């Protein structure tokens, strides 16, 4: 089971924008994409259509919202990485309208 792997290993592999990324097992998705992922930004603002990235890393600013395993609007700073997790930058404006 993947859960066993992630608790016994120090690292997990996630997929950020389709590319695999091996990161420490105990960190948040936001930390993983900003640090090892060198993402720069985590999504686009649906009103202004400009790049955005986390500001607070404590669940206040909502700028870290990403699509995680197919579910949009996830606060990536509050979610710990899991083995095999699929993470995408959020761009609701372009995708939905």
């Amino acid at each position, binding site marked *: 089971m993947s859960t066993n792997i992630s608790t016994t290993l120090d690292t997990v592999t996630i997929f950020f924008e389709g590319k695999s990324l091996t990161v420490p097992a*105990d*960190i948040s998705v936001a930390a993983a994409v900003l640090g090892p992922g060198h993402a720069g930004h985590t999504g686009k603002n649906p009103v202004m259509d400009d790049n955005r990235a*986390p500001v*607070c890393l404590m669940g*206040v*600013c909502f700028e870290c919202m990403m699509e995680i395993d197919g579910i949009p609007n996830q606060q990536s700073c*509050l979610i710990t990485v899991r083995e095999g997790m699929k993470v995408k930058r959020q761009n609701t404006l372009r995708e939905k309208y």
Partner: protein
Amino acid sequence: MQEQYDVLVIGAGPAGLSAASTAAENGLDVILLDEQDSPGGQIYRSVSGKKSYSRFLSKEDRNDGLNLVDRFTKSGAVYLPKTTVWDVSHDGVLCSSDGESREIKAQYIMVATGAMERPVPFKGWTTPGVMSAGSADLLYKSSGIVPHGPVVLAGNGPLIPLVANHLNELGVEIAGILNTSPFQNKPKSMLRIPLAIADIPFLFKGLKMMGAMFLGGAKQYHNVTEIEAKGNGQLNQVSFVHRGQHKTLNAATLLVHEGMLPRTHITRMLNLEHKWDRVQRYWYAKTDTFGRSSNNAIYVVGDGQKVHGVNAATAKGELAGIDVARRLNVLCESAAQLQIAPVKRRLYKALAPRGFVDAFFAPRKNLFTMVDEVVVCRCEGVTAGDIRQAIKEGCHDVNEIKLRTRCGMGPCQGRMCGSALAEITAATLQTEVPNVGALHIRPPIRPVTVRELRDFPSAT
């Protein structure tokens, strides 16, 4: 599973952990809900994690945090991590863990949701690479990751020297420290020194911190104005005015800090009575010494009530825990007094230097005089000009402006723009912030899916 408790605590920081531990040790059924995956709040974020040894720069801080967590673990209180509370009433909460919602009832609710950094809009602050100063520390404590250098720090508040010193120790390049604190804070704060003498080690710690920042060697610019973050989709420069001259620094990260605010979304949603702090310019829930709010069943404790720092937060949590045990008759009055006395002494010692600290780091007068094109509401793209236009058209209350402009209606629900909206409105109308109202906060206070709204087990 039991879904009815004597006491329900929201938030696993110093105040929440202490409140829950004290109430549980006195024999009450206690549950503590927290958003993070491990206890400690923001100041002791991930302190009990496997790698916290290398990620906490101060051994004393780490030990204090571990002691709080250890006491809580042994107290018998139920702990519910990774849980988001999205509605609170006087007798219970609605919350979600991993997309599953549930209702938990309690006789008393303690709100210990802590503080956040005051968001202050400026030109370019939505550019990726601009972060709050505290987030750099959180990133390191929770994941061992440091921000990309060169880093520019800007603002006014205790986190500027703290974070500058941490970055220095970690070998991150600091391109400059832009101090925006007004000169007049210094003489004003000196008047508060006599009371602060009660806690000399605290003052000494502060002096040491400022000294270390100076010795760190990063260039400091004082009385800086007109800070602007520049970069197309990614920060690459910070420009500002210093001594009448326009200057520019290359930067990959800009860390800003303009002081701390209590997080009041839950206390506002509960319609508790709030007061306005004129020095630090923030709203806080009115409580007595034990954290009892204007609602009989609700306590507000720690920095989420008023920002007094970790030692005060711990003491405030303990006092609330003792008080609730007394009210639920598991602790007699004389035994309660015995527990209260030493905690009160600790609280008053921790509060002694706050008058000085609050005055020294008081937000400057022109903090919110940004030009019209500055984006205030990051979620909905509402500018200072849009807000001023709405006021011109007759909106005199922040809720009217919110309806008119959508300022505060995005996913963060006004957490990032609420204080700026109120300050801009008050300044435009040439009045004080308490006269322009406060944003109405309604549940759900966190985005939830329709499924979460539909599926919570109804009380059968």
